[in-house]
C-alpha cells in the first residue's frame, strides 16, 4: 500500500463573521483517501461538508491542521483538484462548448487536442446538439452535465463533488449516477462526493464518511463492498446494499436528531 492520495489531519475551521459569533464549522477532522478511491461524505446540513471540500480545493484556509495531497501540503487551488459545486457555477457568458474548453485552454493545450477533448466529453455526457447553447438555455440536469464535463475535461486527478445531483429530479439523478460510476470505472480518479442521500452515498462509493452535526467531525466510516458490475436493480436489492445503507442511515439519523435538538433547545 502506497501513501495516501489525500490526507486530512487535525483539520479545524472557525469562521469569524463580521456580525455575530464565531462559527466552528469543523473540529479536528482526520481521514485518509487512497488513490483511485471513491469516498462519499454524508452528514446533517450545516456540518461543514462544503467547507471541507473548499479547503481541500484550496479556496479557503484551515484554522488548524493541514491537508496533504500527493505528499504536499496544499494552500491554493490547482488543476490537479477539480470541483463540481452545489450550484452549477458555469460561466453564463460562455456556451456549453466554451465552458468545457475553458480549463483546457488554461492548461495550454494545442487547438487539436482541445477540440478532441471537448467533443469527447460532450459525447460522454450526452450533450450533443447543445454545444452552442448558453447556460440560461439549459435545464438543471443539462447544466449539471456541463458542469461535470467541464471539470472532467481538463482531467484533474481528484474530483471534489459537492452534492452535484442534489437539485435534480430522481430520473436524471439516477442516470447521472450511473454515468459517473461508468466514468470512474474507466478513469479511476480519486473522488470525494458529498451528498445528503444515504442511498446515493452507498450506491456510488467504496467508503462512506459520516460526519457529526456542527462542529463537524468524523463520526464513523463505513466500508461498502458492492459488485459495481451488476445492474442498478441487482445492486440496490442485494443484501450487502440494504445492510450497509441501514448502518449509514442509523448514524446519520442520530446526528440529524441531535441537530434538531440543538436547534429547538
Amino acid at each position, binding site marked *: 500500500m502506497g501513501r495516501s492520495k489525500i490526507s486530512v489531519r487535525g483539520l479545524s475551521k472557525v469562521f469569524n463573521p463580521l456580525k455575530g459569533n464565531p462559527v466552528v464549522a469543523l473540529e479536528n477532522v482526520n481521514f485518509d483517501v487512497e488513490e483511485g478511491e471513491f469516498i462519499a461524505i454524508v452528514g446533517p446540513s450545516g456540518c461543514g461538508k462544503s467547507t471541507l471540500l473548499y479547503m481541500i480545493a484550496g479556496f479557503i484556509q484551515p484554522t488548524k491542521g493541514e491537508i496533504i495531497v500527493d505528499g504536499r501540503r496544499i494552500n491554493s487551488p490547482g488543476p490537479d483538484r*477539480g*470541483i463540481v*459545486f452545489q450550484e452549477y457555477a458555469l460561466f*453564463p457568458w*460562455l456556451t456549453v462548448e466554451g465552458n468545457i474548453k475553458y480549463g483546457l485552454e*488554461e492548461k495550454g493545450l494545442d487547438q487539436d487536442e482541445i477540440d478532441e477533448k471537448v467533443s469527447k466529453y460532450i459525447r460522454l455526457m450526452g450533450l450533443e446538439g447543445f454545444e452552442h447553447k448558453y447556460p440560461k438555455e439549459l435545464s438543471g440536469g443539462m447544466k449539471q452535465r456541463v458542469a461535470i464535463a467541464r471539470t472532467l475535461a481538463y482531467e484533474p486527478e481528484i474530483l471534489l463533488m459537492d452534492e452535484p445531483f442534489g437539485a435534480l429530479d430522481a430520473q436524471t439523478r439516477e442516470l447521472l449516477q450511473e454515468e459517473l460510476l461508468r466514468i470512474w470505472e474507466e478513469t479511476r480518479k480519486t473522488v470525494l462526493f458529498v451528498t445528503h442521500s444515504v442511498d446515493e452515498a452507498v450506491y456510488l462509493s467504496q467508503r462512506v464518511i459520516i460526519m457529526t452535526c456542527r462542529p463537524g467531525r468524523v463520526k464513523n466510516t463505513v466500508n461498502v463492498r458492492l459488485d459495481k458490475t451488476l445492474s442498478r436493480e441487482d445492486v440496490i436489492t442485494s443484501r450487502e446494499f440494504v445492510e450497509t445503507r441501514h448502518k449509514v442511515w442509523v448514524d446519520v439519523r442520530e446526528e440529524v436528531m441531535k441537530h434538531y435538538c440543538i436547534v429547538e433547545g
Partner: protein
Amino acid sequence: MENEAFSGAERAVSLNLRETIGSFISSAYSILVIAIVWELVGRSEIVPYYFLPPLSDVLRSLVVHIADGTLLYHTGVTLFRAMTGYVIASFVGVSLGLLMARFKSANWFFEPIVALLLPLPPLTLVPAFILWFGIGHLSKIMMVIVACVFIITASTYHGVKNINPYYVWSARSMGTSESKILRKVVLPNALPFIFNGLQVTLPISLIAAFVFEMVSGGSGLGSVEIYSARFFKAPELYSSLVLITLVGFIFDRIILKIRSRILSWY
C-alpha cells in the same frame, strides 16, 4: 424529418417577423393618432399659433431648415458635444468603477466623492461651468461627462462586486492566475451591469448637452429651441424638439441592438 424541422424554424422566423412588424404598426398607430390630434388642434383656433402650430407647419419648417443646412449644423454640434462627453464618461466611468471595486484605497478615496456627486442634479452646475469653461464646446462636454460618469462608475462597481464567488473559484481551480481573473471572469460578469449604465446615460448625455445649450445659447439644438421661443417662431421650436426626439430614439435603438448582440447570453 429534416424538412419538418426546417419548416418549423421557418415558421418561427416568420412569426417573429410578423410580431415585430405588428408591434411596430401598433406603436406607429398611437403616434399617428397623436400626430392627427396635433394637426387638428393646431388648425382649430383653440390655442394660439405660437403655442402649438399644426404639425404640417412644423414638418415644413423642418424640411426647409434641413435643406438649407442650419438644422443639420446645429444637430451636428449637439451630437458632437453629447457623444464626446459620453465616450469620455464611459472610459472614465468604467475605469473608475473597476478601480474602486478592486482596490480598497481607490474606494476609500473616491467612494465619498461619488456618493456626494451621484445624486447632485448636474445641471445646477451650469453657471459654474460657464465661468470655468466658457460657453463653447468645452463647458457642454464637461457637463455631459459630469452628468454621465458617476452613473457608469456606480453600475460598473456593482457589476464587479456582484460576482458570484463560485465563478472566481471555478476559474482559479482551472488554473487561471489572479492577474487574469479580471479579464476572464470579472469583466464578462460585470458586462450586463456596465451596459445598464451605458444605456441609462445615453439619453442623459443628450439631455445635458441640450439643456446646457438652452441656457448658454450659441449653437446646438438647445439654443435653436430657446431662440425660436424668444422670437415666437413656434414651428422652428418644435422642429428642434422633433429632431432631438428622433436622435434619442435612434440612439436608443442602436444601443439596444448592440446590447442584444453582445449580451445574448444574459
